[in-house]
């Protein structure tokens, strides 16, 4: 078992490239487990709070379809006595950040212990750089050893001092087989005249540019001006000749489902939810994007309680149930990509269909083809302004 894990670890490491292979990363892979707390944390309250305020994206946690409660949160309360005040008020990184930067920039607490932001948008790194995130109490998170190796040293938080992944997803291309031949790469999407006006591209810079850069043969994990310009101009051309119908968030789903779109740059999770067997999703042939929603503790949050919760979620059994749900108990799972090693083994017990779904538990081959966008580029004001002018004017 250990051998398998180590081999898998190394494979995944070697495959993802760029962000993952760093010297400390290789050291860690050769070592026994992932990051440990380096010299304990300073005086942290070791008492669990009565309530944990957790803000998350909508429909991003397990649900008991009968009672409408969240089994994993109920179990947490049973185990620790802490009630989780779970609010689904995040639906977009930019607007949520826009809302919390007000109080945070004035040194005020936002009354949350855990919030969840995506790593292929600038705001996660921004929270850390501005000092608006609390350091995790790693002593309270021994299960951090179960963190998937590919997630251990992201360039915005190299030692996982402030963040821990919640779920991941992939960005690729979906197409409707009744309207078009398979659209499997960027050339088809952006330059096939038969698809003119019938495709959409994501308005997220991190997603769109990653995919187009990969198609150009460039490395999106280390963006150069030239690579940026090549990719940008390629997309701009498609805008100018009306190939691209719209830049969308997840609102590509209705027109895709209805047949107004032949193909769309889209997120893996959504496609499974459309329930239309004519719509297929693939990682583009030259590579796709990987994004991860990360938990972090905003300034003023209760570090110890939040850390204990994170530890709970990184228990493979808990994660397995949360992820896959359990049709026998009428529990719907999250159905995104879990960051916890060992979750699949438990998921197989609860819901084999989901456990064997390659979009939820992707093979290492699939994972090798998806990349994380360069965090520095995400904060380059020039790139950002150029991108916004393209999609918004």
């Amino acid at each position, binding site marked *: 078992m250990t051998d398998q894990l180590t081999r898998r670890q190394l494979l995944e490491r070697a495959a993802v490239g760029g962000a993952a292979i760093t010297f400390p990363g290789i050291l860690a892979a050769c070592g026994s487990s992932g990051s440990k707390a380096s010299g304990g944390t300073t005086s942290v309250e070791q008492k669990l709070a009565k309530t944990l305020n957790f803000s998350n994206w909508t429909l991003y946690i397990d649900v008991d379809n009968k009672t409408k409660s969240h089994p994993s949160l109920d179990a947490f309360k049973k185990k620790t006595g802490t009630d989780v005040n779970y609010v689904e008020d995040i639906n977009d990184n930019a607007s949520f950040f*826009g809302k919390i930067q007000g109080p945070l920039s004035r040194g005020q607490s936002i009354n949350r212990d855990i919030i969840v932001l995506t790593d292929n948008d600038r705001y996660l790194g*921004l929270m850390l750089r501005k000092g608006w995130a609390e350091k995790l109490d790693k002593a309270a998170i021994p299960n951090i050893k179960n963190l998937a190796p590919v997630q251990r040293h992201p360039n915005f938080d190299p030692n996982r001092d402030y963040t821990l992944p919640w779920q991941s997803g992939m960005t690729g291309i979906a197409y409707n087989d009744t309207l078009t031949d398979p659209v499997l790469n960027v050339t088809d999407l952006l330059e096939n005249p038969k698809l003119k006006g019938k495709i959409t591209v994501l308005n997220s810079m991190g997603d769109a540019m990653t995919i187009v850069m990969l198609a150009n043969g460039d490395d999106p994990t280390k963006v150069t001006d030239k690579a940026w310009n090549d990719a940008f101009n390629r997309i701009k051309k498609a805008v100018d000749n009306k190939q691209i*119908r719209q830049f969308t968030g997840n609102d590509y789903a*209705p027109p895709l489902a209805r047949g*107004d779109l032949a193909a769309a740059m889209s997120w893996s999770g959504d496609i499974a939810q459309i329930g239309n067997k004519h719509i297929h999703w693939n990682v583009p042939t030259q590579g796709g994007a990987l994004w991860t929603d990360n938990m972090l503790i905003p300034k003023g949050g209760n570090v110890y309680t939040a850390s204990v919760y994170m530890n709970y979620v990184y228990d493979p059994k808990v994660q397995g149930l949360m992820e896959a749900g359990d049709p026998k108990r009428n529990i719907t799972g999250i159905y995104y990509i879990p960051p916890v090693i060992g979750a699949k083994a438990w998921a197989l017990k609860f819901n084999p269909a989901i456990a064997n779904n390659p979009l939820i538990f992707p093979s290492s081959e699939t994972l090798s083809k998806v990349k994380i966008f360069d965090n520095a580029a995400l904060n380059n004001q020039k790139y950002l302004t150029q991108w*916004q002018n393209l999609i918004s004017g």
Partner: protein
Amino acid sequence: MNVFHRHQGATPYLLLLPGVLFLSVFFVVPLGFLAYQSLESGNIDFGYAFTWQWSNYWDAIQNYRGEFIRSIEYAAIATFFALVASYPVAYWIAFRGGRWKNLLLLFIVAPFFVTYLIRTLAWETILSDHGFVVRTLQTLHLLGSNGRLLATGTAVVAGITYNFLPFMALPLYVSLEQIDARMIEAAEDLYASKWHAFWRVTFPLSLPGVVAGTLLTFIPAAGDFINAQLLGGPQNHMIGNVIQSKFLELTDYPAAAAMSFILMAGILVFVFLYARLVGTEQLTGTAA
């Protein structure tokens, strides 16, 4: 006929007090913060500082002139169509509604009870490329065989018009309902033509409603962003979308603030010119 009270004393100020006080605290003060912000410079990483950065304004006008103009354009067209579409209905409810008036008014605002997103999604279903509407238009050759309605400027204007119909219809109704039907009868006797009677008597009497509806539609429509975001393509975006992106994605709060003030100023200019056109009596009540 409006006559000013002769012995008004403190009455007007007392009437104004609660509302104006509320707005002063909860609108003017925030507006002050916004004005301060519009003259700042800096970025989210290193903070913002007040530096009398008038270039925020100048840059906004230079770089986004197209979007400003497009916003005024879309808003004006939408207001016009809203007026033309709503007037007959407001007339009908006012004069023929009888005891069903209130019910009919409710129907006008009914779409708002279903959140904006849901009713727009419903429209996207109705105006779908393969839907009944588009296919009919294609058969009638009003739309090219490959044409579509969604993700175009037309869809954006149609969306704005639809979503602002109540803002036009209700003030129109309010003003029309007041007109004494006997006046119209008398006018018809005088002019012997229903159309003449309408144009010479009814319409001028309903002008306050027309002005109110036009303002309540045009002003917010110019700053709208959501219709362009969901129904438009990249070439159809309005100034509201730019302000949105400056604020959220680019965290360029000074630029967003400056653009907002330019928009407000532009709208006020329009309102002023409009007041000139229709005569300030309709706008403010009586010659000041």
